[in-house]
């Protein structure tokens, strides 16, 4: 167990699977106490349990982040129990059905925006309120290459992720003098359950893979490594950054 984040309390939303899970495990390996927040409590508990088994410190909290009141309650309890929220990684997000804009449904719009945009806002608001009390903190939002570029059939996801970029930068500027840094990672396609669920067609998979000049997908660990750097004191002059971790996708 390394000690880069010793005695730090970290919240990871969407920590029960995919990129969030990778971030939760990486933060725990570096000594942080990790609160794994997920709508699916079974997944969150599995991750927390596996971290504990490997000598790390973690617990699981169930929360639907699209419910701002539930987020407030859950984060308030976390701060009370652990004394602080030093690091936050807002990773919870969902994919959208692969449809061109004219064919999209209102219910899909509402669902994607509720989780990916309102959810991040609700978490950031609760985290910022606690971090302002502390006078310090770091927030890393998991945005997407879809915060910087578009992909046909993904207009709702793109809209939500452009919104996350806007929230990130605005909050970064607002709290730059309060000791709170706010940044985002923009991952390309990553090997996760969410990706496999959204991309089932092998032709679509090849198309997506070829959009990355490295001609491969990323791994949750590769995203987590960027999160570790942005969360650490090494990045103390970095705020409002959107860091692409995408095998070269957005360089094109």
């Amino acid at each position, binding site marked *: 167990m390394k000690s880069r984040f010793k005695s730090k309390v970290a919240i990871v939303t969407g920590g029960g699977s995919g990129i969030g899970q990778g971030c939760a495990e990486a933060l725990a390996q570096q000594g942080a106490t990790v609160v794994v927040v997920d709508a699916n409590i079974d997944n969150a508990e599995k991750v927390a349990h596996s971290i504990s088994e490997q000598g790390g410190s973690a617990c699981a909290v169930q929360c639907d982040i699209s419910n701002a009141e539930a987020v407030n309650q859950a984060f308030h309890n976390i701060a009370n129990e652990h004394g602080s929220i030093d690091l936050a990684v807002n990773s919870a997000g969902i994919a959208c059905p692969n449809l061109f804009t004219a064919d999209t449904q209102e219910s899909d719009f509402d669902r994607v925006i509720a989780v990916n945009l309102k959810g991040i806002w609700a978490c950031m608001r609760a985290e910022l309120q606690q971090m302002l009390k502390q006078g310090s903190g770091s927030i890393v939002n998991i945005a997407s290459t879809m915060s910087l570029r578009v992909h046909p059939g993904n207009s709702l996801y793109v809209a939500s992720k452009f919104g996350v970029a806007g929230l990130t930068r605005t909050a970064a500027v607002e709290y730059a*003098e309060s000791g709170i840094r706010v940044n985002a990672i923009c991952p390309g396609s990553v090997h996760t359950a969410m990706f496999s669920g959204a991309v089932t067609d092998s032709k679509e998979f090849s198309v997506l893979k070829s959009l990355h000049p490295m001609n491969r997908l990323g791994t949750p660990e590769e995203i987590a490594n960027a999160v570790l750097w942005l969360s650490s004191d090494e990045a103390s*002059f970095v705020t*409002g950054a959107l860091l692409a*971790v995408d095998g070269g996708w957005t360089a094109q």
Partner: protein
Amino acid sequence: MKRLQNKVALITGCASPNGIGFGIARLFAAEGARVFLADIDADSIALRAEEISREAQDIHSLSLDVTSEPAWLEAMNTIEARFGRLDILVNNAGILIPQYLQESTLEDWSAQLDVNLLGTFLGTKHGANLMRRHGTGSIINISSVAGLIGVPTNSAYSATKGGIRLFSKCAAIELAPAGIRVNTIHPGFITTDIQIAAQKSMGDDYQRMLEKVPMKRSGVVDDVAYSAAYLASDESNYVTGSELVIDGGLTAS
């Protein structure tokens, strides 16, 4: 194991003891890299290498005019002869001649284009040729916030830094199949000799720009060095064609 253990790194523009190049060299050495410090100023660079050698192994100085293609070829030969490989190249050498456009001269324009942009092109080209043989490598080109936004008195400098940004993205796409990553770092206000020169020439404009930094302060050389260490290490294996902004929030606002 240290983050850059046994990697062979070349960093250009390391002569200034207060500069970003030397800061990166110091951190890379501390993280276990074998480092070549390069600069056109041979005397200063030998001193810098000696300073780092007190606490690290395998630190070398290399006299290099980044605007000369024969000099780059010779540098690559030297590194290949010594270690047989190059893992990390930081194209950091750069000059700033702050001038309002109306007072600027062709000579000063060309000098900045040569060191900053031509130097980065030659370094990336020849560095990649040596890296290619092992199918792995990380090239880090030091751009600037002036490569993202306009800055008064920085027109030539901004042209070079904006050029470095897109040049690096093209190189990243072309070199991805060869296993070579290319990224840029965009420092904002960092306490270095170049910044002190800019402060003198820009007067009130400088103060106005500094006040726009949301963190209301300058950064230090180590802030940039840490970002270079991340991009140089295997931690950033999926990062290429990316731009890392180290500016206290300046360009986010």
